[in-house]
């Protein structure tokens, strides 16, 4: 029992992912700043921000649906901690259970649902518009993400366990095949959309709807959202590494490779983030349903043929 609590609360769950996530957010901010000829924040800026937010007052709008408004960020944070634990256990301790990849897909969706609930309950017109956009974005990327997850499942011989997908990649990583490459690229874009990073930061769109669903949040509740977003920077790229790049190894030269693989994906995400304007929600829907989904379907068929 204590072992599982340790997994959940310290490593690889809450504490580890939070700290690593905030450090990765620093990498993101720093690299973005350097790309834009800016100085960028100091290393501990994100920690300071979070501590400051926890010390601030929580303001709750009179018109909001209070219970949902307060519980949404905590609920979302819980989901992300659970997700971190499941992905981390599979990646590092090689502990999995039957169907854990399906649970992971569900948990990722539930985070978006929590954002929609939080935004929709705040009684603010910008927030509800942002929540509406989040629904559309979720509808847009969900199908493609499921198809992307299908490719490694099929390639590993229809295994629904993350640790078995990793075992299947011992002989060769999935990105080496055509279907694997398709899956990796589309998976990267899906993750960009799931984390609402540019060009898919449509629900938050600062200059249009002023941070959308998060507009009315303040103090500790906002800190929970920020923490969840920081942790996503750890989990989502790690998930891509697991599904297509052969996961992490913690012996000898493997450590270096693991870190490099992970950083490669983070840097790719930051580059996509910094070289694209925000697209419109209908363009995003069009892109995911008309272009990405058929290509991904071809990828799935190819993986069935073993290509």
């Amino acid at each position, binding site marked *: 029992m204590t072992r599982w609590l340790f997994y959940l609360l310290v490593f690889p769950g809450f504490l580890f992912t939070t700290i690593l996530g905030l450090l990765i957010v620093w990498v993101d901010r720093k690299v*973005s700043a350097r*790309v*834009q*000829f*800016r100085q960028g924040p100091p290393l501990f800026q994100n920690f300071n921000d979070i501590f400051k937010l926890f010390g601030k007052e929580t303001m709750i709008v009179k018109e909001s649906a209070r219970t949902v408004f307060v519980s949404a960020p905590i609920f979302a944070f819980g989901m992300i901690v659970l997700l971190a634990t499941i992905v981390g256990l599979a990646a590092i301790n090689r502990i999995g259970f039957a169907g854990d990849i399906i649970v992971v897909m569900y948990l990722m969706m539930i985070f978006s649902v929590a954002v929609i609930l939080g935004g929709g309950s705040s009684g603010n*017109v*910008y927030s509800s*518009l942002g929540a*509406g*956009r989040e629904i559309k974005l979720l509808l847009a990327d969900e199908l493609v993400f499921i198809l992307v997850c299908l490719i490694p499942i099929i390639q590993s011989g229809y295994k629904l366990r993350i640790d078995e997908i990793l075992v299947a990649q011992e002989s060769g990583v999935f990105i080496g095949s055509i279907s694997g490459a398709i899956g990796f690229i589309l998976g990267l874009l899906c993750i960009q959309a799931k984390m609402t990073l*540019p*060009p898919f*930061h*449509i629900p938050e*769109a*600062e*200059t*249009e*709807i*002023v941070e959308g669903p998060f507009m009315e949040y303040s103090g500790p509740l906002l800190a929970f959202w920020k923490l969840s977003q920081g942790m996503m920077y750890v989990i989502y790229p790690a998930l891509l590494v697991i599904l297509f790049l052969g996961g992490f190894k913690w012996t000898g030269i493997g450590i270096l490779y693991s870190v490099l693989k992970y950083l490669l994906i983070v840097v790719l995400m930051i580059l996509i983030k*910094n*070289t*694209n*304007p*925000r*697209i*419109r*929600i*209908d*363009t995003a829907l069009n892109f995911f349903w008309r272009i990405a989904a058929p290509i991904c379907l071809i990828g799935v068929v190819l993986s069935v043929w073993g290509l």
Partner: protein
Amino acid sequence: MSVNKIPVGPFHPLLEEAEYFELKVDGETVVDIDLEIGWMHRGHEFISESKTFTQSIFLVERICGICSTSHPLALVHAVEDIDNIEIPLRARYIRTLIGELERIHSHLLWIGLAGHFIGYDTLWMWAWKYREPILQMFEMITGNRNHYGMMRVGGVARDVDPVIIPKLLEDLDIVDQKMVMIAGAAKDDPVLRSRLKNVGILTHQAAVDLCAVGPTARASGIAIDVRKDDPTDAYDLVEFNMIVQKNGDVYDKLVVRVLETLESTKIVRQCLEKLKVVKGPILNDVKEVSEGEGIGRYEAPRGEVFHYIRSDGTNRPIRHKVRAPSYVNIPTYVASCKGIPVADALITLAAVDPCYCCTERTIQLIDANRNPVAVDLLKLSREKTEQVRREIHD
């Protein structure tokens, strides 16, 4: 159909200044837009009546922080118009030089802001970085990065030192290079193109009906430019093209501004070359301004700026009227924002490069002893704020 109201303003990340637009939306589509201007009143016209003409130059310079030489230029044109004052040739070149450098920095600023508004922060930072050499050139020429204080009735205040001209030309080459790069990056980027093309179209007819000016009009196919139509200063002595586009969408407004910047560097280069050879005085000393009225026009980066001066023969105007270009460009929102998604409507609002603090005027009724009649402005303002607050909450 349920219509929601989205308030843009009075304080909103899209607007640097206080302004209020109410988007009436059905889902994500804008069905109607309400413009409410009048959130700022600084009393420039009123203050100007208590200042001398030379003091007024520094006052009107502060009407706008971005196009801070357009207003003084239009003002001195208006005062010179009263007595048909001739200005020396060298001063004409220097005026045009300052005006065009300002156009470059203003357009670069807009490109950056437009990038920020569509969530492209890299373009924002890059455009502003390359705006920096222009500001440094200003510092070399006038001693200030902004608010140059160069214009005088009858000429300019400071001469351009011949020693710095080679350095200025060198800097200009760098700006030119970077502009070509930004033009390429902005025009050929497929994502940017798909984001801006056919967005917020202002048709030619609508632009004519609403009397649009400046880049807003030129993007809709109206060939209107005070520099060509009514050339003052050195504009009839330099070669440049008027950039006109046909579609009137946001993308065309971007193209007009980017290409105009390249035209402006051309003009600046010609002016600097001329300043090497044209010698002579820079200020025709004007001792007094006779009774009469004058108008001054100048093509500011945002369009035609218009000043009217009535003088009674003293050293102060008895009436000074300012019309900024944004005043006629802001109503084009009504024509271009209807029926498009909210995401597009907001970039369309920013695409005319509005400058609200230039635009705003108030009218206060006063009796013969200059005492306010009927309404107290402060009270009115508070009531208005309260009314808007109630409307938003209903």
